[in-house]
């Protein structure tokens, strides 16, 4: 029984991380209707940024976020502005714009394999004084960094929510997401909003990456695993729905963790895909059926 409870706790902790990753993805889709295949790769970039910054300066990884997050924002903004924007503009009237999807998948290949080339295939990790710290409640052991990551994601999600609802930029983003033509007429520079939104999406990913480095391995292909999960979550929770992303994340985290008690890890992955496909076919708006709540 304790094993199960332990698994549930771990599932929720990890699930929130997945959820926040998916949140970045769903934000980008909600605002731009773009599926960013390079999302996982951007997470990897965030993780490496955190890793190198910490390794070179010795700063605590959580403090390093102050640098990593804006870096990722700039990275995302740049990508959207220089690469995605031209293709996006060109496909304005097209019913099923594949160009951006293909472009981001090209970006995925480039980023992942460039990282492989530059950093090699070694698995790296960051050692901090509290890496092996854990808290104990009864028989349940909660790993320190995982708990901090969980707290971080909840805090991050809440901050983001405030941003969307209270700030001018946040409202502009929501407006653009709902109706870009009208938003444009209201004086919103639509393309700049896209770049900002994309940048934020990647910044969120960088934030997640920074939270992960204290306990997760850093490797050029780490993004792929998170990428697939993010897509499953986003479809599960409804493309464009932020609460859906978080809830979906926790569900997937739970499934992973609990099912892994009974089956091998790779069969767990197969089940995740099965759920993914089931949702796609039976309820494409997402099991939670939550519409983008802008």
């Amino acid at each position: 029984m304790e094993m199960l409870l332990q698994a549930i706790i771990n599932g929720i902790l990890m699930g929130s991380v997945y959820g926040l990753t998916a949140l970045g993805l769903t934000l980008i889709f909600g605002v731009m209707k773009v599926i960013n295949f390079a999302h996982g790769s951007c997470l990897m970039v965030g993780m490496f940024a955190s890793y190198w910054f910490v390794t070179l300066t010795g700063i605590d990884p959580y403090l390093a976020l102050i640098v990593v997050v804006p870096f990722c924002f700039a990275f995302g903004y740049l990508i959207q502005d220089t690469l995605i924007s031209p293709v996006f503009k060109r496909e304005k009237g097209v019913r099923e714009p594949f160009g951006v999807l293909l472009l981001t998948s090209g970006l995925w290949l480039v980023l992942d394999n460039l990282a492989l080339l530059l950093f090699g295939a070694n698995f790296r990790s960051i050692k901090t004084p509290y890496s092996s710290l854990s808290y104990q409640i009864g028989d349940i052991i909660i790993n320190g960094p995982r708990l901090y990551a969980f707290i971080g994601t909840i805090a991050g999600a809440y901050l983001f929510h405030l941003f969307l609802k209270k700030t001018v930029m946040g409202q502009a983003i929501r407006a653009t997401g709902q109706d870009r033509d009208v938003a444009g007429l209201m004086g919103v520079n639509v393309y700049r909003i896209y770049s900002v939104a994309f940048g934020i999406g990647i910044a969120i990913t960088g934030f997640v990456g920074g939270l992960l480095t204290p306990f997760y391995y850093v490797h050029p292909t780490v993004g792929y695993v998170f990428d697939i999960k993010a897509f499953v979550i986003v479809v599960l929770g409804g493309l464009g729905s932020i609460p859906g992303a978080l809830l979906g994340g926790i569900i997937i985290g739970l499934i992973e963790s609990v099912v892994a008690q009974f089956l091998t890890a790779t069969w767990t992955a197969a089940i995740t895909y099965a759920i993914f496909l089931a949702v796609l076919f039976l309820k494409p708006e997402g099991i939670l059926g939550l519409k983008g709540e802008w």
Partner: protein
Amino acid sequence: MNRFSLTSPRVYVPLGLVVILFVIPLVMRSPIFLHLMILIFFYAYLTLSWNIVGGFAGQVSLGHTAFTGIGAYTSTLLFIQLGLTPWIGMFAGAFLAALMAVIIGYPCFKLRGAYFALSTIGFLEAFRIVVENTNEVFGIPIKGAQGMEVPLRGDSLLYFQFLDKEPYYYIILIMMFIALYVTYRISKSKFGYYLLAIKNDLEAAESLGVNIAHSKLKAAAISGFLTGIGGTFYAQLILFIDPANIIGAYLAFEIVFIAVIGGRGTLLGPILGSFLLVPVSELTRVYLGGTYFGVHLIVFGAMLIVVMLFLPRGINDSVLKIYHWVIEKLERKGSHALEGVASR
């Protein structure tokens, strides 16, 4: 000058190119070079097969290596267990692949755009993971992630195995031309028009009598069948199959990239794309690869990004323009020569 006579550049240039392709192995004997050519034709073949669904019908499948996987595993298992020559096993694999294409297609085709693409990835990944984790099926070993070796028979036409590169070269070259011919015939047929209509506007197509589901599934079946045969060829070439490669996501994306860079939906695009991408990526792999598995993919990705930004329809149109310019120059030269003769 007669348009269809042998002296017309419209005839002798393409004919000459085809002849050159067939003559190459007699002139260039380096196995490394021949292997490169084999890869070019192989990727072109896979992409031509993909093009039927992804280019003509506009349904971008990102999981097509499910079919190479089925083809390869079927023919190899039949070979190992029953001693059946891969020449026949190939067709068994192709039929199974076509069947799977229809089964997967049935639910997936109901989805639009990006959802469809995602669902194909979902199926591919799920399929690969299942194979990777299965050691036996009904007592027949398939060795999971380890992969299987194709039993060696040395130099044997009967068993689709050769010690030299030349036979493989000719086989895949012919396969490529067959795939090209099939796509050509489709493009000129009612079926081809229907696929194009579906790609352009689904609703309008339906109102004009096009049975959407039927056309899409037919395209999937043909594409799956051809792709499955490609899987068997790969198995006989490399003599080793494993899920990571033959049911790989990277290969699935490479096919799509070649199609897009070459010109999605065009006849020659897949071949042009392959001739451009494969040599460059092989060079990258040879000189920079070393122990890094996916270095050539940087090239694939970068080229795709460049094409998406500047040449979204692929290189097909530009290449054809250059080609026609050359032809016209040759035609004019030819007619000047004739005039010269006539005026004497």
